[in-house]
């Protein structure tokens, strides 16, 4: 009797488990659309959403580009989902492409939405598109080879990324919106000729709003200071071009009479790739130093002009200023800041040939 009761009890438990699972709501992978790239624009109080969805066919992959508008991002996505045969799953969203005009208006709301969403990974890249989304995606559809990772490959670090491109993820933008002392740079792209997309520099984002732009060369410097410059190439004046093999930075900060001073020591280990004429090692080193200092000056001028701390130098004063003062960092302290950059170029090797 006890045995029967126990068996019945466990059977009942299993049945309840099956009833409670909700596993019939699970959709198999072939019934989901997995968009990789989402474009966002904002015109006349309406969001325009473009989704680039790779469609697996029996012979390869075709790209589907769908666009909808809505009062919110979710409404637009839902509209797209309703028109598709399979449901749209934003789980695999890797790139968020923002139209430049919208970036200039301010991305705070969208970024907050993405951070809140359980579907979208905070690791997705944020990229700015320097033209209308429609023309950009039209270009992608017509001239780029359709594969699963079209477009995404151009931005991804282990694929088509280059050290002169900024690499910023949603969580970093979100952090910059809420941080007193750190802003981000977002790469800017536009459609190029012959099936490529062109990188035109990086946008300076302050509190989620685009306030300026830096060139690719400056972005390389920016990346080097942030430790991302490896494999980047620098043209040295007229004499040579070098490849960065590794880079490291040391910072020393001090605050004297409310004026922040920062010494940055950038050590670059480089390899010589190309030379013109017969330059000496010393000449290359000196010119490299000169070029980088000049570029840094330009970069810093832009930072000061936009009052956006994309280098995150404010971080080095966090232990020197009280929190109440930190909130004025961008307005009061950053413009007065004195930065001294010291570049230590080390020529690690000269390639397969010796310099004469």
């Amino acid at each position, binding site marked *: 009797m006890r045995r029967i009761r126990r068996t019945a009890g466990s059977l009942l438990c299993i049945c309840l*488990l099956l009833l409670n699972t909700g596993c019939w709501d*699970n*959709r*198999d*992978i*072939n019934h989901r659309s997995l968009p990789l790239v989402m474009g966002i624009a904002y015109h006349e109080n309406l969001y325009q959403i473009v989704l680039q969805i790779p469609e697996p066919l029996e012979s390869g*992959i075709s790209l589907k580009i769908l666009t909808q508008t809505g009062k919110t991002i979710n409404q637009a996505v839902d509209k797209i989902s309703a028109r598709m045969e399979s449901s749209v799953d934003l789980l695999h969203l*890797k790139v968020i492409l923002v139209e430049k005009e919208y970036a200039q208006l301010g991305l705070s709301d969208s970024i907050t939405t993405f951070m809140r969403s359980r579907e979208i990974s905070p690791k997705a890249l944020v990229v700015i598109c320097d033209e209308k989304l429609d023309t950009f995606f039209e270009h992608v559809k017509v001239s780029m080879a359709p594969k*699963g990772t079209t477009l995404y490959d151009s931005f991804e670090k282990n694929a088509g990324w280059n050290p002169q491109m900024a690499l910023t993820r949603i969580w970093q933008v979100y952090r910059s919106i809420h941080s007193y002392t750190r802003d981000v740079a977002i790469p800017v792209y536009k459609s190029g000729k012959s099936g490529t997309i062109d990188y035109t520099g990086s946008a300076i984002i302050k509190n989620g709003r685009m306030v300026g732009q830096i060139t690719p060369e400056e972005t390389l410097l920016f990346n080097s200071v942030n430790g991302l410059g490896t494999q980047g190439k620098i043209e040295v004046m007229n004499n040579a071009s070098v490849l960065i093999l590794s880079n490291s930075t040391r910072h020393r900060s001090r605050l004297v009479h409310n004026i922040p001073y920062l010494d940055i020591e950038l050590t670059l280990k480089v390899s010589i790739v190309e030379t013109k004429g017969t330059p000496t090692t010393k000449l290359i080193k000196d010119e490299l130093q000169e070029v980088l200092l000049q570029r840094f000056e330009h970069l810093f001028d832009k930072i000061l002009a936009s009052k956006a701390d994309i280098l995150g130098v404010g971080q080095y004063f966090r232990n020197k200023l009280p929190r109440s003062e930190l909130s004025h960092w961008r307005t009061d302290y950053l413009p007065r800041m004195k930065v001294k950059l010291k570049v230590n170029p080390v020529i690690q090797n000269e390639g397969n040939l010796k310099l004469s």
Partner: protein
Amino acid sequence: MGFISRIKEQYAVSDDFFILNDYLLETPVILMGFNSLMDWTLTKQNLQTYINTAADTGLGLEEFRTVLGQVETASGMDKASAGLLQGKLIIYFEQENSFIVMDTVARTLDRSITPPVNENVFQGTLSSFTEDINSNIGILRKQIQSSHVNVSSYTIGSEETRQLTLVYYEGHADVNLIEKIKMQIEQNKHQQIDNLQQLSQRMMGFRNWTLVPNLNQTELPEEAANFLRNGRALLFMDRLPVAVVLPSLLWDIFVLGSDRHMPLPLMMFLRALRVIGVMLTLILPGTYVALVSVNPEVLRIELALSIAQTREGIPYPAIVEIVLMLLILELIIEASIRLPKNIGPTITMVGGIILGEAVVQAKLVSNLLIIILAATTIANSTIIGLQQSLSLRIAKYIIVILAAIYGVFGIMEGLVLVFAYLSSLHPFGIPYTSIMRCKKEVNHG
């Protein structure tokens, strides 16, 4: 009723039973036995040689009888019966109402010692246990020549008797364990034991509903000797060509004594492979279900798309698909055991066609699933012991179902469930998940 009439009543219906009147040194005797169990011609010759020698040396009947065997009074039917069934010759003396149980020339009813059939040996001793319990113990004694190997035999069963022998290594085995086993055998001596299930349940008192085998078994004398050295006890049952290892532990799935014939790194590599095999068997099918239907975000996008591509047009959800294919796979494995060796390849061929090509071409399952299934089956085969691999095969279904419900999280749940279950087992008070070593210091026997 007389002794003869009782014997006749019991055995005369059997045609292989013979009962003959004869003379032994001019004394009338009755000879009885089974000619299916003894070689009667040779036995008769032997007996004649004895008689001739006795006559030559002028031995008296009384002395001659003690030469032939122990003299028993005819009141003890049991001894006569047991002797008969063991293939002995009963010589009955009518005048004194007593009998002798005489050893005979037995028919060879046992196969010779052959290489193992169910287990493969990789660079180790090649002989295996046979049906004859005494040869088995003999093989074992050859393998492990020590005065500390103790053998205690029991006759079990009441209606049908059977020999059960406990072997242990004194000084290596835990005294408490041996005492417990001996106590269990003594207590349940009268039980009828025909198979290992009964041995485990009736004799050893294990629960019947366990997923993993309570009794580990091996047919390799080398492994058996290693088990003995590591403090396990062995049970031999007559007519069973394996040594039953007590207690059975999780570690036995991964470790083979003959691994130690290899250098240490190679041994560790092999054992690591088996651990990986176990994990893959458990996880792989569940992972497929979880990633395809519940958590596709875990996959890299390239992989996600190619999986979606292979699943294009497949009618069933992943769980139905995988359970269907796993079932076919189980059927193939079972069928290939069942079929005689000369038509066995048919199954391999037909199964290969189903699993390899047809089922994918018919768009019933995705071809990724075939890869998963093949990998699972291969991984499952790395496990030592057919019974253990069977229990793992069952455990993987639990994980598949949980994965279909809860996704990747369900796989973890399932693993926790399986390992919690394994940890809950403790045969003879020894945790199933423990590693048993030779008890050198404590509890000397």
